């Protein structure tokens, strides 16, 4: 069975601080896919990134970066120089080959204050 744990329920930071959202996953499959989604107050989940299990390279997209470490089964997400618009709930999710289902973590609410 697959499982995703986001231990941080809520994080509060002040604008321009860096913040890391943790994601730990469990699966016995060797081929799997990890995702991050952002859910702003409007409610719609917005896709941020997908990473497959064979690609451990870290990725950077503007102020966003992702650190994938198979050794610790983690796929952490860092926002550099946070902004108020980053305030949202962030979900980490996992899927495995042959199954279209996504398993989600419980989400981390990020509050960025001015």
């Amino acid at each position, binding site marked *: 069975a697959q499982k995703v744990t986001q231990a941080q*329920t809520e994080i509060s930071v002040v604008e321009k601080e860096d913040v890391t959202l943790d994601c730990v996953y469990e699966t016995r499959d060797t081929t*799997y*896919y990890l*995702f991050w*989604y952002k859910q702003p107050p*409007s*409610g*719609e*989940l*917005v*896709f941020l990134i*997908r990473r*497959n299990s064979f690609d451990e390279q870290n990725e950077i997209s503007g102020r966003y970066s992702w650190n994938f470490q198979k050794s610790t089964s983690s796929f952490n997400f860092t926002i550099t120089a946070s902004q108020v618009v980053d305030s949202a709930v962030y*979900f980490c999710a996992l*899927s*495995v*080959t*042959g*199954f*279209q*289902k*996504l398993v*989600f*973590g*419980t*989400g981390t609410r990020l509050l960025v204050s001015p």
Partner: protein
Amino acid sequence: DVKVTQSSRYLVKRTGEKVFLECVQDMDHENMFWYRQDPGLGLRLIYFSYDVKMKEKGDIPEGYSVSREKKERFSLILESASTNQTSMYLCASSFGTSGSETQYFGPGTRLLVL
């Protein structure tokens, strides 16, 4: 751009009513999904469909049914709404069957059952 739309953003229903939640996607995706989102529980899969007239139970199908008569439309039905079905309902769609596909989400429907 992928577009997933849901028929209502907010719904208020009474206990015992039959409720229909509609979801439409415009990208010819094979797969469609219904999730419910509750605080502290993340997103949980209710049902999904990988083809017209095909459906599979997710993790919490009790009290729900679905219908997919056309590829672009996936309906979630609450046969007799109950107060414990008050929740945020999210529809998603994806293309392909490998498990690597990104799911794209609609804006969600906040359902209140009185």
